[in-house]
């Protein structure tokens, strides 16, 4: 029986500066996804008309209106300028996770990707809080309701990005892990059941046909879109909450 190894992204090569920066599948696939989204944007918004004649334009308008509506609905009208950012997170997360459907290594299965996003969002939350209630007000917020709570408040503040990152990462990577395990298990089961067949027939993993597709619908399609949506929702709610803390 083959040994199963579950690893992170494949390292293509290392840039020999700062002690070596590895360029991995995560980076390359992220760029591919970004390129795909850019092309999608360009295609959708190509030749826009005041009186729409193409489905592309209707889709583009639908996306913009939905995301803007989502952002203004969750964060309030004054935060509508966050819409492109939310749309970018939504698209990047969803398309990254969905890239596993094409057999690519999903960039969202790399903790670095999600951790980077989470840290960026943590910075935004902190910035919004300081902007809303001033630096002293921000610091004072940690002593609420009284000074004894300060350590817990700091923990919960730091817990925000960590929980966001691990929630998304965990969901996607669990899909990868379970898919890998199921594939391996089905391969073994195939060998056991059909291994007696002569020649090459015995090596075809018949059980791998069909069954993984069912899992794929959940882990790749549903979970990918769900996690992208949850991540963007949390981003909006945390930032909006940070702004309304003082109201």
């Amino acid at each position: 029986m083959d040994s199963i190894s579950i690893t992170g992204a494949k390292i293509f090569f290392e840039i020999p500066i700062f002690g070596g920066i590895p360029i991995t599948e995560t980076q390359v696939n992220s760029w591919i996804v970004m390129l795909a989204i850019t092309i999608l944007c360009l295609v959708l918004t190509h030749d826009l008309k005041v009186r729409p004649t193409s489905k592309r334009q209707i889709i583009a308008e639908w996306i913009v209106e939905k995301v803007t509506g989502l952002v203004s609905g969750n964060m309030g009208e004054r935060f509508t300028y966050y819409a492109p950012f939310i749309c970018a997170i939504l698209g990047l997360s969803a398309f990254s996770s969905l890239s596993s459907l094409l057999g690519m290594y999903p960039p969202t299965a790399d903790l670095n990707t999600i951790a980077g996003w989470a840290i960026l969002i943590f910075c935004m939350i902190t910035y919004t809080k300081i902007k809303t209630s001033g630096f002293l007000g921000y610091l004072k917020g940690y002593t609420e309701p009284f000074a004894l709570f300060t350590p817990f408040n700091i923990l919960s503040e730091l817990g925000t990005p960590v929980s966001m990152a691990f929630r998304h990462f965990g969901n996607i990577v669990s899909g990868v892990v379970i898919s890998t395990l199921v594939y391996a298990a089905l391969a073994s089961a195939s060998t056991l059941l059909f291994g007696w067949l002569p020649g090459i027939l015995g090596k075809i993993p018949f059980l791998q046909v069909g069954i993984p597709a069912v899992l794929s619908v959940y882990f790749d399609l549903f979970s990918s879109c769900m996690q992208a949506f949850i991540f963007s929702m949390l981003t909006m709610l945390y930032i909006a909450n940070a702004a309304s803390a003082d109201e």
Partner: protein
Amino acid sequence: MSNEYLELISLNVWHMFATVGNLLILTWIVKKFLFDRVKKVLADRQNQVDELYRDAEEAKDAALKDKTEYEAKLDAADAEAETILKKASARAERRSDEIIENANRKAEETLKKADADIAQEKKKAMNDLKNEISEISVQIAETIVQREINEDDHRELIDSFIENL
């Protein structure tokens, strides 16, 4: 190409930076190539719709204005027609009055003239009569003068004269 793999859970600061950079770049792309473009078109459409509405409103106002104008004109025309009619009928009445008056006057004149004529005729007849009487008297006188008149003849003459009157 090496066959090295990262650990399943590994953290690399550079990768995080790259990810943040990727996200920010994608945000810029999405804003520039999706949101800005679509919003521009939506704004253009809104402008066009507003313009159409404004035009329609203006056209409606103009039509209403025209309508009131026409109605006023129609009312004026009605009033004018009425005055014209009134004037015409008044003139006709005056004219008929005139005609009737003329006719009356003429009839009266005719009557007067007829009366005058009659009076003159009468006068003439009277004169004729007088002339005849005097003629007769002359004849009688002649008759008297021509023959010897006795008492009886005299009486008879007078009687016959009176009888002839």
